[in-house]
């Protein structure tokens, strides 16, 4: 297929030299993670090196010879963003100590080294790399953007997929209610590594998220952020409603927003009158089976609600 539109050169119009996350990337309309990338770069500024895992954000942002990244950026493979970032950090420690003039680099202390991975890249296949990076104490901020499944390969379940959600590897069926596990608590796992700063955030509150990125970058050592970022394609909802769904996940308590410093919870975004989880489930295609089979569906929704209530209690989420 060829058209006048395709033959035209739009590169002039696409130049946004001052931006660190540039338009022209291939994310779907209403992509939550793409918003997270924008906020991360805005908060971190230009003196930043990003190590990104394979996944949607990598694929949509760097089709050779184009790149959306105005910061220094490296992608290597799916499961090692934490280690690549750790290696960059170690190199900068060495330069700083051994031969500050050897490369044209700024003071290591001023450089933000940020690893970014999806929930699959982080909580599943890249778990070893993440654990090692945090345990060794590298001065790296790791950000897991959570769209609750492997989207790049076509919506397969991850350990962040919520209970009851249908994905291509957790289909609903006569013998299946969809995904049969609850979200793995990555914030606590990170905190248990002795990481000085751990926080969760949602793209529905960019101000809060960016503040947390800035705060994390001020702290020496490993930091872990879990940012909630809905995917209209994988979840099956109207792409105009990304921010709304992210906000609802927070309001229902499915995604609690809090901070942990030196292993202790230091702030919780309290919720007054948590919304019941059905309100959030209903507009999403991945949960539609829960509303078809009343008996099984209700039981599943109840089970998910119980899990949310228990976490809310543990965290002191209710205002």
């Amino acid at each position, binding site marked *: 297929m060829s058209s006048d539109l395709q033959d035209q050169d739009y590169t002039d119009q696409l130049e946004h030299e001052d931006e660190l996350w540039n338009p022209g990337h291939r994310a779907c309309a209403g992509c939550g993670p793409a918003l997270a990338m924008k906020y991360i770069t805005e908060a971190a500024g230009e003196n930043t090196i990003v190590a990104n895992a394979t996944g949607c954000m990598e694929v949509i942002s760097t089709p050779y010879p184009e790149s959306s990244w105005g910061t220094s950026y490296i992608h290597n493979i799916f499961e090692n963003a934490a280690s690549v970032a750790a*290696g960059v950090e170690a*190199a900068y420690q060495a330069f700083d100590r051994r031969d500050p003039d050897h490369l044209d680099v700024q003071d290591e202390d001023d450089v933000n080294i940020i690893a970014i991975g999806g929930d699959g890249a982080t909580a599943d296949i890249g778990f070893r790399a993440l654990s090692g990076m945090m345990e060794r104490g590298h001065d790296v901020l790791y950000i897991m953007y959570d769209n609750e499944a492997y989207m790049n390969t076509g919506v397969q379940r991850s350990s962040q997929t919520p209970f009851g959600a249908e994905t291509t590897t957790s289909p609903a069926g006569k013998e299946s209610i969809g995904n049969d596990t609850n979200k793995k608590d990555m914030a606590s796992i990170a905190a248990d590594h002795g990481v000085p700063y751990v926080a969760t955030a949602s793209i529905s509150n960019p101000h809060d998220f960016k503040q947390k990125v800035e705060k994390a970058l001020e702290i020496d050592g490993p930091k872990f952020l879990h940012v909630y970022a809905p995917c209209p394609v994988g979840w099956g909802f109207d792409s105009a409603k990304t921010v709304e769904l992210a906000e609802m996940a927070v309001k229902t308590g499915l995604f609690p927003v809090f901070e942990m410093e030196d292993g202790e919870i230091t702030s919780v975004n309290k919720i007054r009158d948590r919304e019941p989880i059905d309100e959030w489930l209903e507009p999403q295609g991945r949960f539609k089976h829960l509303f078809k089979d009343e008996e099984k569906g209700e039981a599943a929704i109840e089970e998910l609600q119980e899990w949310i209530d228990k976490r809310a209690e543990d965290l002191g989420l209710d205002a």
Partner: protein
Amino acid sequence: MAQADQQNPSDEQEVMKGTSAVAKGVMAADPDVVSAYPITPQTGVVEKLSELVADGDLDSEFIKVDSEFNAASTCIGASAAGARAFSATSSQGLKLMSEPLFTAAGMRLPIVMAVANRSLSAPLSIWADHTDAFAERDGGMLQFHAEDVQEAIDHVLLGFRVAEQVNLPALSNFDGFILTHVQEPANIPDEEEVSEFLPPRDPEYTLDPSDPKTMGAYARPEHWTESRYEIQRAMMDAREVWADAVEEFRDVFGRDYTEYGGMLDTYYADDADHIVVAMGSIAGTIRNVVDAYREDGEKVGMVRPRVFRPFPAPELRDALADAESVAVLTKEMSPGYESAFAGEIKGALYHAESQPPIKSYVLGMAGRDVKPEDIAEIVEDAKTATPQMGFKESESWPQLRPELLEGGDDL
């Protein structure tokens, strides 16, 4: 074999364990970052490097990684940032590194690694063979094989020099136990001597945030082939870069690896009627067998590829052209076909004018001892080789123990 130039007054030799000697050679290369994980028989290298860092003798960032996978991955990050990065491993560890290592080649990062060669599971075995190195053959890493500890040290230094010029990672192979655990005299160059030969790394592209770059973009069909072709071109360029490097190495250190542009090391091969080809430490035993034949007036010789990637095809054509028989001794096997090493040598001779009959011998696997008499028997057997052999006759497993095999009595 490392022919130490006795005239060189600075050629002081120390006796120490192979792994320690290699670690001290690495120290002389002064890497910015070292990241490695223990595995037998390589462990001594990572232990010694840790010790050198702990004692303040080596000023590197030593990353105490959780696995070989992340040893390679952290080296990739460090190398992309512009650092000189080193790692070391064996066998299962090399397998675990395989995925990131291929990308180190694709992203043109000159990480150098010492590989203490060992068989791959299963069955589990910790002893030497070349299965691990061959399994990484197609990744785009330079590969060298050392015959003795001195070469294992020197190949690491040469490796950095060449890898950083052609922007490819390098695996410097040395046989597990046979070279890692031996106490051998070797000259360990100091940092000052090495700095003359190996200047600090000066990469063209890094992750320096003051000049932002995107590294590791994904390529669509219209670009991927070219990136692979560039690796091939860099490999071919490496031949000349290596040749220059071994010459300069001789001038600085007095050890001469310049034969065949540094690609091959030969022993009485010039006029030999019967040639044994092998890589690594087994060459020492082969030399004794060649000596015995020569004493009896029989023209037997040896050809040992020092460099395995880039493959020394033109040199092998030249070195093997006039032989009546060629016996390839190899510690690996590609099940379903034949020894990969023998297959490559045959391939190298396919268009050659003169094609000696080649027979391959799979032996010495997982540390099985190869004695001089085994090699002499092989030479005798190879003499019977004819240009037109059946496929079955072209390969033999001379050390096979039929009594351990089901139906073995009929073999």
